[in-house]
């Protein structure tokens, strides 16, 4: 079996060996549910779709995913087990992939456990299930992008709290990069091309159309590119910092 898959299995199991998994899943489900019904006005809208549910995902991920990703490498570096792992016959890329995929699969499990939402909307009306499936896919992809950012930042430090805060800040920047809050920082001095590029980096804009069930190849490519880039950075950071 491939070394990345062996590490993947170990990592995924370790989530369930500690309270991390249960706390994460319970909080995620509670928040996702209450946002949908109370803030999203699920009933009041009178429409059989899940857009009130999906529209809160970016904000949920903003705080929950960094809590998941902060330990990925920071904990290994703190406990010294990174020295054990990196002297086993596994490449840096395999190690990065194994850990990332396990965390991603775990968020996938948490996301899948929101299925009562899907059951409710099907019980209450006649929603477009294709659109819902697309939105789930988009949400999972976006979670992957958050995780890839978090994994890379986790490799830069031995301190999980630092990793958490930095990840929230960077993810917040990515979420809002299409909005004045971020763009104003650049507009005065950066060339227009750069400002446009930054504004096109927004998670929210890319997720918006997916959450409505519109799958645009560009949005899928965007999230895949973000994941790839941050994982590549993770490999580099790990190589430089693992022994510190």
């Amino acid at each position, binding site marked *: *079996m491939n*070394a990345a898959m*062996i*590490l993947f299995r*170990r990592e995924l*199991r*370790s989530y369930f*060996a*500690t309270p991390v998994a249960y706390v994460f899943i319970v909080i995620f489900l509670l928040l996702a549910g209450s946002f949908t019904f109370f803030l999203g006005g699920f009933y009041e809208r009178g429409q059989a779709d899940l857009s009130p549910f999906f529209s809160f995902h970016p904000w949920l991920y903003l705080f929950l995913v960094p809590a998941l990703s902060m330990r990925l490498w920071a904990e290994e570096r703190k*406990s*010294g*087990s990174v*020295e*054990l792992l*990196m*002297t*086993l*016959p*596994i*490449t840096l890329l395999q190690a990065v992939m194994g850990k990332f995929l396990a965390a991603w699969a775990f968020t996938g499990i948490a996301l899948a456990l929101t299925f009562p939402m899907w059951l409710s909307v099907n019980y209450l009306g006649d929603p477009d299930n294709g659109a819902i499936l697309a939105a789930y896919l988009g949400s999972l992809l976006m979670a992957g992008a958050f995780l890839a950012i978090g994994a890379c930042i986790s490799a830069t430090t031995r301190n999980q709290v630092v990793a958490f805060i930095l990840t929230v800040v960077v993810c917040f920047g990515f979420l809002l990069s299409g909005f004045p809050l971020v763009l104003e920082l650049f507009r005065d001095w950066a060339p227009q091309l750069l400002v446009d590029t930054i504004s096109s980096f927004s998670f929210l804009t890319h997720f918006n159309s997916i959450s409505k069930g519109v799958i645009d190849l560009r949005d899928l490519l965007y999230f895949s590119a973000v994941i790839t880039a941050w994982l590549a950075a993770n490999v580099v950071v790990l190589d430089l910092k*693992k*022994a510190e």
Partner: protein
Amino acid sequence: MIEAQSVSKRFGSLLAVDQLSFSVNPGEVLGFLGPNGAGKSTTMKMITGFIAPTEGRILVYGHDVENDPIQCKQQIGYLPEGAPSYGEMNPLAFLEFIADLRGLQGAHRRQRLDYVIDKLALESVLKQNIDTLSKGFKRRVGLAQAVLHDPRVLILDEPTDGLDPNQKHEVRDLIRDMSNDKIIIISTHILEEVEAVCNRAMIISRGKLLADDTPTNLAARSPGHNTVHLVMGDSSQAANLATALEQLDPVSAVERLDDGLSLKAIPDAGQEILPQLQQLLVEKGLAPCQLYVQRGKLDDVFRSITTGARP
């Protein structure tokens, strides 16, 4: 065989390892000796490929650690300093994880797992979280992990740290058992450990190699090596013998103790005086009440070499 070719490692302005060159052959149990911060662990980290040397290169059975890391890592079993592992796992799950990553399969995997669990007496804690184990058990889990795939090269950073005397004894037996056809490198600052298991010792200080010899030869550099202590029946015999001893060629000095009965014959460096002393005793018809030959202490040599004083 492991070859280190003028390896240096620099951390910022600190030169942790300075132009270290050595080679180790199968059957050798090499002990790295040195004060804390001497560069022992750094050297081990470079051999295992965890960190890259700033200069020079290391070959493990002909494979360059930097260019061919996976090939090298497959041949090496490594116990890092402090025996880190995954605390939320139990030893069985942890060892199975290592066995999978090491590519062990089927009956061989089962047999190796059974072997290390038995050898390191882990049976009783197999299902407990590693986090909850005592320091000694954690260390043994780390050792089990290192020897699991029966590696050709075994690198152990302070393998007996935190073990009680019985456990130390067992770990040393284990190391000796495996030493026939393997390269074993251990680091320690417990000198008796070097004398117990190593057939070669390297003293490192401030990243430099200061001595490389067998533990016995190193101990022989100690000033008190081969000094003979005698206690005679009465003081006239002692005086008589002291005068005679001073005439012997290899004796550099004779000291008489205050009680008038005891004396100490110190040889010239590297010389033995016992055979001539025995002859002398027979000729003079003297029978000492007590006689013993002092062995050189590695401690003294270690201290004098690493603090720069002459032995």
